[in-house]
C-alpha cells in the first residue's frame, strides 16, 4: 500500500479549496429541502441573488441553496452565517429588507425572528432556538453549510480526510476494530452491530466483493435518508469508500428510491465530482485501493428495503426476499460476499473514523451509541427532522423539541418504526429511546419515522392503515404474509365499519402471531406489530368499535356522523361555503343543518367552524380547543 500519498493529495485538494474561502465571509444559507421548497424557497434564493446585486453586495455575500435544516414547520428558513442569525417563514417579499438590514447593515429584522412560545421572547440565533438546542446534529448539522452539488463545500468541512487517514495508516482490520469500539449499530431498523457484518464479509475469501447502500427509503412518514442524500451526498459516498476498503470490495452500489428525483440527481453529481478528483475510481487518492460506485434506481417496492430483495432487484430480478440463513456476507450480490447498510449507517462511518471511536462511543446509552435521526411528523407543532443522542426520552422529543401537540389537543400515542413498528402510549413517554427499550414496548427503532398522534387519531384506523400498506407491498412469495395480512385487514375493516363480533380480537391476535412467526422476511414478520401494539395499549378502543359500534376518536367514517349543535351555531355560513357537497343548508344568521344523505363525512365543516358548533356523533368528549 502506498502511504503518505493519500493525505498529501487530499491536503493539496483541501488547500486549493480553502484558498478561496474566508471563514468570516457572510453566507446566506437558504433551506431548499423538500418542505421549504414546497413553500417557495426557490423564489427566496432567486430574490437574494437579485437583491444582493441591486445592493452591490453580490461579491461580498454568498447565497447557498442547501438541503433540509430540519425545522420544516417554520420554513422557508434563512440562516445568515457566520453569526447564524435565524429567520423563519421567509418569503420573496422579505428579502429586500433582510439584504438592507442584516447584510448591508448589521441589524436584525425583528418581525422574521422566531418567537419562543414558552417565553414569548424573540430569538436571534439559530442555536438558541429550543427546537435545535436539545439536538446533537453530528450527521445532519452540516446540511446547512453545504451546497450539495459542490464537492468543495464538503472538503472545506474536512470531508474525505477520514478516507485519507484510513488509507494512510490503517489496515482493513483496524478499521473494523475501530467500528467495533465505536459500537455503531445498523440504522436501517434492526440495529445489528455494523462491525459484525463487515467482519464476516472481510473474512470471506475472494477478490470480488461488494458494498451496497440502501437508500430505498420506503417507510411512510419518513424522510431522513432522503434528506441526507439530497443534502450531503458525499458523507455517504465517503462511508462506502471506507467500508469498501475495510471489507475488500472494489465496487459499490448506491440504491436510491425512484420517488426521490432530487436525491438521485445529487447523488449522480456527487459521484461524478468524486471521480473527477480521484476520490473514486482507480487508485483512490493515489493509493493502491480502487473503488467504483454505481448508482441504481429502485423500482418502487417497499419490500426492497429487505436486503435480499434489494440485491435481487439490482440483479434485474423481481424484488423477492429469500431465506435469511443464506447470509449476504457469504452469498450476496451476484453470489459474492456483500455488505449492505442503510444511508445513515454509512454516513456515520467517516465521522467515527475522523473523530475516533472513543469520542463517538461516549454519545448514547450503554447498548445504543451515537445519534439517531427522526422525522418528527403528524400531530406535532414543530414538524421536522430531528437528530438526537440515543437515550433521549420520548417526552423530550415530543414536548421540548417538538413543541407539543397543536390546537390544544391531547397527546395520545407516538408511532415509531413505520409499518414494522408499533404505537407507544403516554405512560411510556419517559422511556429513553434506544434499540432495546423500543423493542421491549413492542415497537422498534426502525429507520427513524416518528409519527405523533392526538386524541382525534383512532388506533383501529391506524392499525388498518399500516396493514393495508403491508398488504399492498407484500411481494406475495410466502403464504403467511400474502394471505395472513389480507385476512387481518379484512377483520379490521369489519371492526372499523361496525361489523365487528365478539371473539374478533382473540382471532386477530392468533392470526397476528402466526403471520409474525411464519413469514419469510422482515416485512411479514413485523407487519402484525401495529396491530399487536394497538391491541396491547388501546384494547378498549377496539371494544367500543365492536360492542358499541362507536369510534371514540371520531375517525372511522362508517361509525360517525356530523351534526350541527343549534345552540352554538350562529349561522355565519362558513361551513356552508366550505362543504364540497353542498350538504349544509340554512338561512344566514340562523342555525344551519347538515343533510345526512348528502354528507360524505369529509370533516371540512368541522375544521372550518370557529364556534365549536359542529359535533362528531359517537365520539368521546374532546378537550376544549384553545384556538
Amino acid at each position, binding site marked *: 500500500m502506498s502511504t503518505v500519498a493519500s493525505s498529501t493529495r487530499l491536503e493539496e485538494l483541501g488547500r486549493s479549496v480553502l484558498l478561496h474561502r474566508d471563514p468570516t465571509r457572510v453566507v446566506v444559507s437558504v433551506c431548499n429541502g423538500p418542505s421549504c421548497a414546497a413553500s417557495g424557497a426557490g423564489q427566496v434564493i432567486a430574490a437574494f441573488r437579485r437583491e444582493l446585486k441591486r445592493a452591490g453586495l453580490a461579491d461580498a455575500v454568498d447565497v447557498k441553496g442547501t438541503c433540509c435544516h430540519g425545522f420544516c414547520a417554520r420554513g422557508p428558513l434563512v440562516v445568515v452565517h457566520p453569526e447564524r442569525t435565524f429567520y423563519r417563514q421567509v418569503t420573496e417579499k422579505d428579502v429586500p429588507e433582510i439584504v438592507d438590514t442584516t447584510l448591508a447593515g448589521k441589524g436584525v429584522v425583528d418581525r422574521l425572528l422566531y418567537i419562543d412560545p414558552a417565553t414569548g421572547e424573540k430569538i436571534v440565533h439559530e442555536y438558541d432556538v429550543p427546537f435545535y438546542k436539545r439536538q446533537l446534529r453530528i450527521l445532519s448539522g452540516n446540511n446547512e453549510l453545504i451546497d450539495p452539488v459542490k464537492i468543495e463545500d464538503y472538503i472545506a468541512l474536512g470531508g474525505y480526510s477520514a478516507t485519507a487517514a484510513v488509507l494512510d495508516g490503517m489496515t482493513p482490520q483496524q478499521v473494523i476494530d475501530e467500528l467495533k469500539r465505536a459500537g455503531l449499530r445498523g440504522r436501517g431498523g434492526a440495529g445489528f452491530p455494523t462491525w459484525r457484518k463487515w467482519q464476516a464479509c472481510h473474512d470471506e475469501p475472494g477478490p470480488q466483493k461488494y458494498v451496497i447502500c440502501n437508500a430505498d427509503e420506503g417507510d411512510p412518514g419518513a424522510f431522513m435518508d432522503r434528506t441526507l442524500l439530497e443534502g450531503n451526498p458525499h458523507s455517504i459516498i465517503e462511508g462506502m469508500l471506507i467500508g469498501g476498503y475495510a471489507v475488500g470490495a472494489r465496487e459499490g452500489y448506491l440504491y436510491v428510491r425512484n420517488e426521490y428525483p432530487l436525491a438521485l440527481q445529487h447523488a449522480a453529481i456527487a459521484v461524478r465530482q468524486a471521480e473527477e478528483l480521484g476520490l473514486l475510481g482507480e487508485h483512490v487518492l493515489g493509493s493502491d485501493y480502487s473503488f467504483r460506485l454505481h448508482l441504481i*434506481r429502485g423500482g418502487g417496492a417497499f419490500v426492497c428495503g429487505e436486503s435480499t430483495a434489494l440485491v435481487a*432487484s439490482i440483479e434485474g430480478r423481481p424484488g423477492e426476499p429469500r431465506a435469511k440463513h443464506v447470509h449476504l456476507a457469504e452469498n450476496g450480490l451476484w453470489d459474492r460476499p456483500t455488505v449492505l447498510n442503510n444511508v445513515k449507517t454509512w454516513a456515520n462511518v467517516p465521522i467515527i473514523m475522523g473523530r475516533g471511536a472513543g469520542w463517538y462511543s461516549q454519545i448514547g446509552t450503554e447498548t445504543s451509541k451515537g445519534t439517531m435521526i427522526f*422525522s418528527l411528523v403528524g400531530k406535532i407543532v414543530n414538524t421536522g427532522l430531528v437528530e438526537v443522542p440515543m437515550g433521549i426520552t420520548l417526552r423530550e422529543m415530543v414536548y421540548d423539541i417538538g413543541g407539543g401537540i397543536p390546537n390544544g389537543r391531547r397527546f395520545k400515542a407516538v408511532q415509531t418504526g413505520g409499518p414494522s413498528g408499533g404505537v407507544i402510549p403516554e405512560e411510556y413517554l419517559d422511556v429513553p429511546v434506544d434499540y432495546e427499550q423500543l423493542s421491549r414496548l413492542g415497537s422498534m427503532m426502525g429507520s427513524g419515522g416518528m409519527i405523533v398522534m392526538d386524541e382525534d387519531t383512532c388506533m383501529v384506523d391506524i392499525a388498518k392503515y399500516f396493514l393495508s400498506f403491508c398488504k399492498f407491498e407484500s411481494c406475495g412469495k410466502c403464504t403467511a404474509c400474502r394471505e395472513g395480512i389480507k385476512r387481518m385487514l379484512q377483520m379490521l375493516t369489519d371492526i372499523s365499519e361496525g361489523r365487528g363480533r365478539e371473539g374478533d380480537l382473540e382471532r386477530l391476535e392468533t392470526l397476528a402471531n402466526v403471520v409474525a412467526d411464519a413469514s419469510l422476511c422482515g416485512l411479514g414478520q413485523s407487519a402484525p406489530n401495529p396491530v399487536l401494539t394497538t391491541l396491547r395499549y388501546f384494547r378498549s378502543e377496539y371494544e367500543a368499535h365492536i360492542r358499541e359500534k362507536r369510534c371514540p376518536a371520531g375517525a372511522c367514517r362508517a361509525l360517525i356522523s356530523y351534526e350541527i349543535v343549534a345552540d352554538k351555531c350562529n349561522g355565519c355560513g362558513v361551513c356552508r361555503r*366550505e362543504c364540497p357537497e353542498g350538504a349544509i343548508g340554512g338561512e344566514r344568521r340562523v342555525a344551519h343543518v347538515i343533510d345526512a344523505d348528502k354528507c360524505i363525512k*369529509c370533516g371540512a365543516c368541522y375544521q372550518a367552524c370557529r364556534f365549536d358548533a359542529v359535533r362528531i356523533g359517537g365520539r368521546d368528549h374532546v378537550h376544549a380547543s384553545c384556538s
Partner: protein
Amino acid sequence: MTTAAIDLAKTDAALAAYDSAEGGLVGLLQDIQAEYSYLPREALERVAQRTGLPISRIYSLATFFKAFSLEPRGRHVISVCLGTACHVRGAGVILEKIERELGVRAGHTTRDGRFTLEVVNCVGDCAVSPVCLVDGEIYAKISVTKVDTLLKRYEEP
C-alpha cells in the same frame, strides 16, 4: 386500444446506454418508461431481443415494480400521497374527492386521457402534509375544498 406505431429508436437509445454487468435492468425499463410514459409491448420485445433475456423475465420486472405501467398514461399524472403523516391529516377523503371529480379510481386514467390518478406511499414532504403531486410539481397542505381549483389549473382549451 389501438396504439400509434411505436418509435423504437428511443428504446434503442436507452439500450445503448445499458450495461448489463452493472445491474441496471430496472433502470433501463425506467428510461424507456420516461420516453413513452409507459412500457409499450414492442419496446419490451426489443429489450428481450437485444439482451437475450426471455420476454417473461422482462415482464416479471415490469409487473412487479410499482414504477411501471403497461398502459399509456394520461397527459397529467396526479399522485396523491397516502403516507402516514398525510393519512392522519385526512389524505383519504382528498383522494376520494379527486376520484369523484375525475370519475376514475386510483390507478386509472380518465377516458379523455387528461389525467392518470395514482397514489404514492410517502414522498417525504410530511411537514407540509397532506400533499399531492401533479406532473411532479408539489401541492402542499391541500384540502377537500382546494381540489376543484387544483384540477382547473390543468383544464385544457
